[in-house]
């Protein structure tokens, strides 16, 4: 943190706590939640580390966490990394591609929708917003279940497609097709992309766009030269918000495919958790996922901190 900011903060703090409230007053409000996060958030994260770097009970095969970094053993981690670059390399690459494609579709489609509602929503804006928000209130599993019903071999999608002679016979959409999983991910997470984009686009001053227009730009170049560069932070934030949960998603995959040909990182983690005696594997896989996500998480935290400072 730059020195300038902390100095301003300190003087403000002195002013407030000195005048009205005793010094312990506000920290006391935060302390129960801090204690909660210490025990039920940071401790579990550290436990993942100490199980990943820990040992295994020789008889019961249960993981024995090693709490002191001094005594950590790296055998599980080495084995896990070996598999990441060997046996499971396909799975990691596939996850990366699926998430990349799904986020890209989310961005293009989500941007168009958010732009339309923010700029041209007009009198129907409230209705449109309610419709855009509604998926957030519907259980994710129900939304996937709806597609399981529709994409069944005898489901309505196949019936419509065969009726229109698009396909000669029903397609097994749910039988291990990557495209189904990718579209499922898009369907599941796109609302999280649209809402921040909408909130941002709605705040862009109309006068900025008008000045572009007055200087002779057609709608497309106004968009490319003014709106798009302005919305870069919102785009990045939206991409982080949708891609983080996609990387850890396994239920979309199991519900819409369930086949080894579409396995993702989330499925590997879920499999190891559901298999007795694979605690260390699960911990190592979580650790690898965390390392993969370090950059997007770091970006998100940094931009949030900056936005908070700007206020």
């Amino acid at each position, binding site marked *: 943190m730059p020195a300038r900011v902390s100095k301003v903060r300190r003087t403000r703090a002195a002013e*407030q706590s000195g005048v009205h409230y005793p010094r312990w007053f506000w920290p006391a*409000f935060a302390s129960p939640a801090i204690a909660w996060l210490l025990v039920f958030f940071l401790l579990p994260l550290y*436990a993942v580390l100490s199980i990943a770097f820990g040992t295994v009970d020789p008889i019961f095969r249960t993981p024995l966490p090693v709490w002191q970094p001094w005594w950590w053993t790296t055998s599980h981690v080495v084995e896990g990394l070996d598999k990441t670059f060997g046996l499971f390399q396909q799975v990691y690459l596939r996850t990366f591609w699926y998430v990349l494609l799904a986020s890209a579709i989310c961005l293009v489609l989500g941007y168009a929708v958010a732009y339309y509602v923010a700029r*041209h929503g007009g009198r129907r804006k409230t209705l449109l917003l309610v419709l855009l928000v509604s998926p957030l209130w519907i259980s994710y599993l*129900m939304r996937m279940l709806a597609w399981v019903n529709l994409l069944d071999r005898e489901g309505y999608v196949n019936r419509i497609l065969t009726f229109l002679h698009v396909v000669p016979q029903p397609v097994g959409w749910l039988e291990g097709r990557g495209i189904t999983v990718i579209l499922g991910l898009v369907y599941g997470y796109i609302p999280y992309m649209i809402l921040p984009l909408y909130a941002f686009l709605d705040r862009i001053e109309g006068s900025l766009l008008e000045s572009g227009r007055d200087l002779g730009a057609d709608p497309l170049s106004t968009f490319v030269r003014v709106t798009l560069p302005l919305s870069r932070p919102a785009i990045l934030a939206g991409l982080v918000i949708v891609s983080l949960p996609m990387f850890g998603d396994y239920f979309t995959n199991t519900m819409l495919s369930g086949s080894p040909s579409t396995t993702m990182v989330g499925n590997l983690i*879920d499999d190891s958790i559901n298999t007795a005696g694979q605690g260390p594997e699960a911990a190592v896989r979580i650790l690898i996922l965390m390392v993969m996500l370090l950059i997007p998480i770091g970006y998100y935290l940094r931009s949030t901190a900056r936005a908070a400072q700007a206020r």
Partner: protein
Amino acid sequence: MTKSTADSRGVGTAVATPQVGRLRSWWSNPWRKPRLLEAVTWGYLAWSILPIVVAVLISFNQGRSNSSIQGLGLNWWWGDPSSSLFHDPELHAAIFQSLRLSIATMAVTVPLGVAFALGLDRWHGRGSGTANFVMLLSFVMPEIVLGVAMFLVVVHVLAFLNLGTIAQVVGLVTYQLSYPVIIVRARLLSIGKEYEEAAMDLGAPPRQAIRRVLLPLLYPAILASFTVVFADSLDDFVTVRYLSGPANSEPLSVKIYNFSRGSPTPAINAAATFLLFATTLVVVLGYLGYRYTQRGERREDMTALTGL
């Protein structure tokens, strides 16, 4: 708005010239109607909402099929004596487990989160930055990380916490804690410190200023937090699945997952529809209450209720 005047001006600028010129003037006309965007938006909304409508209709299916509707009725909600939603003992128990978990989570998370928000907002000393950082970290952490970490801790470290209802509530509270903090802090930012300071200048001791001035001003945010946390916990799946113990501690969301991969009947659609109705009811009530506690103020954006 200026939309109608803009439209008429747009018509005026489209000068009747040969085809290419007309196309160009249509293209560069800043007031032309965004037909394509409009089509994409309504297409998206149809894609997003129609599957849910079909799933709800299937829950009222008379037949056994999960993919085609053979007449409507309440067979899978109530009618069937052994496998309808309210008669299948497994689903029946799951409904209550879902409700139990969300109510308990809401009751713990909201007070904890509101106090945390107040503390973080006003306390500028050492440590507040770190606390804020950890809170945000818990907000962005993928749920599977939290779920697996909690599972490992409950099984191997805090063994007194047995897998089951208590562990599930603890996991949900941890996962949901950042929502009330973010909602309440946004509200604190918009109301400012003036009212509270005025109260104290008029002689109110700090505690009274908080209880009689600040807290009433926070009611909309607190209500929004209750709504968001309740609805979100009701629909939660990843955390509660890893932390569930015996079969009777599995809530509806987990049952939907398990059943949909087995041989599902429309009863599972009825379960999902039940969750949908329950969430909708809570959100509508929450929104009405939110508007009521905010009466007389400038209307704030609906997005406050989305938890983003």
